[in-house]
């Protein structure tokens, strides 16, 4: 039963995506909507990303120092470990799990509300491909803007660790900064960006899918929003494993 339902949902998702990626009725309108979505989904997420990143970066630095404090391990390892944790996992996977909550619920509830208030029916009756009109700009905007959020997250997290070095005596600034630069692997940045693009697509498309097919009223919109966040979070974790295996080994 579970397998049958999952396959049916996947089939509906594929049909939905086919509608979404049709050619827009009006390129100009679609372009303007994409810019609006960049502001709404991307730029509006910057404060959250900055706040979370700076605190988590600081916490990672403190925990690294506590866990690897040993005369056998060089002190600069705190900076190195903080950097690699941020680059490999926090700035993409964990950030996207957080954004799945914020952006995913926003998308699912917006589209779901449009469904239950018949706004999507109104678009369809006018002859507008509603899935394409509503969802494509969101996917393009979020995928396009995600690298910006990831880079900001990386920089701010490392700044959080730096502030720990500046304002506490856990580690010296010199050693932290040396650690940040030691044994740097550029590919880790590309790895983070590639993963984040896939996760951004998952968040935007899965949340849109759940919102688009809402039936009922306000309660169902809430449920769709939750389902969208849960499903995209699980998919992010699944693809995290797959992409890590593919890209790092």
């Amino acid at each position, binding site marked *: 039963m579970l397998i049958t339902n999952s396959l049916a949902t996947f089939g509906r998702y594929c049909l939905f995506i086919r509608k979404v990626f049709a050619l827009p*009725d*009006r390129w100009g*309108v679609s372009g303007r909507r994409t810019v609006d979505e960049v502001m709404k989904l991307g730029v509006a997420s910057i404060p959250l990303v900055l706040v979370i990143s700076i605190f988590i970066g600081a916490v990672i630095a403190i925990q690294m120092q506590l866990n690897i404090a040993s005369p056998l391990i060089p002190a600069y390892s705190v900076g190195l470990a903080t950097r690699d944790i941020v680059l490999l996992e926090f700035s993409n996977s964990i950030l996207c799990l957080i954004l799945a909550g914020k952006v995913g619920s926003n998308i699912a509830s917006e589209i779901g*509300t*449009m469904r239950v*208030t*018949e*706004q999507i*029916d*109104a678009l*369809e*009756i*006018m*002859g*507008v491909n509603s899935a394409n009109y509503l969802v494509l700009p969101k996917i393009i905007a979020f995928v396009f803007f995600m690298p910006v959020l990831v880079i900001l997250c990386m920089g701010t997290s490392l700044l959080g660790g730096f502030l720990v070095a500046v304002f506490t005596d856990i580690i010296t600034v010199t050693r932290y900064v040396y650690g940040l630069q030691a044994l740097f692997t550029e590919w880790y940045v590309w790895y983070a960006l590639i993963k984040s693009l896939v996760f951004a697509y998952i968040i935007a498309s899965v949340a849109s899918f759940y919102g688009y097919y809402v039936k009922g009223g306000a309660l169902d919109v809430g449920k769709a929003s939750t389902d969208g966040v849960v499903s995209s979070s699980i998919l992010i974790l699944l693809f995290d494993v797959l992409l890590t295996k593919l890209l790092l080994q």
Partner: protein
Amino acid sequence: MIEIKDITKSFDDRTVLHGVSAVFETGKTNLIIGQSGSGKTVLMKSLVGLVRPEEGEILFDGRDLLKMTADETKNLRKEIGMLFQGSALFDSETVLGNVMFPLIMFTGMSKDEMLERAHFCISRVNLTGAENKYPSEISGGMQKRVAIARAIALNPKYLFCDEPNSGLDPKTSILIDELLHDITHEYNITTVINTHDMNSVLGIGENIVFINKGYREWVGNMNQIYNTANEALNHFVFATELFQQVRRYVVANGRYDNDTHR
């Protein structure tokens, strides 16, 4: 003119429409009436293509909606205006933005031409001055009028209205009815209104189709309805003491002055 022939629609094992046939005439307000659950909403959704019947024909001036290609359906939709029960205005757009939407999507008009047309439609529904307000800032009656303005923006040949009086006070309901009636005659539109509002039935019912338990039980107009022998229709239309009195008056006097009622 829209003609439907033997429309049958089922959901799972339950048949909602049983071979319904009817003609909706051009330049008239055509009403689909019936109790809640009678199948009138499914019939309306079938007419606009949101629901696909298993059997039958839906002919828009001879063109069968159920046999059209995707492109033909898309072109037909440009000839259709629809007023939803909840207005279905776009929350993120102003009144002007809502009315301009179909013009932006489907015409090659310049911005000035679109603005001129949108302002004309807004003034036609007496909403001049509300152009920059958002749907959440205006009353339910005003929202319906914005939806009508949006529906007529592209000069539709067919106008569908799903319970246009739902949630409105009696006075506003009559204003909406009059507006729909006037627009229908002014632009010679085929207007189909799904309603169970008795003021609408007796006020603008130029062609009435009564649906009961998924069957088309009666066809007539607002004057003929007083003398109907159909028991289900009598129970439905003249359910209250007020409407029974109206009926007795009309039957006793042999005629009914519609303007007085409105």
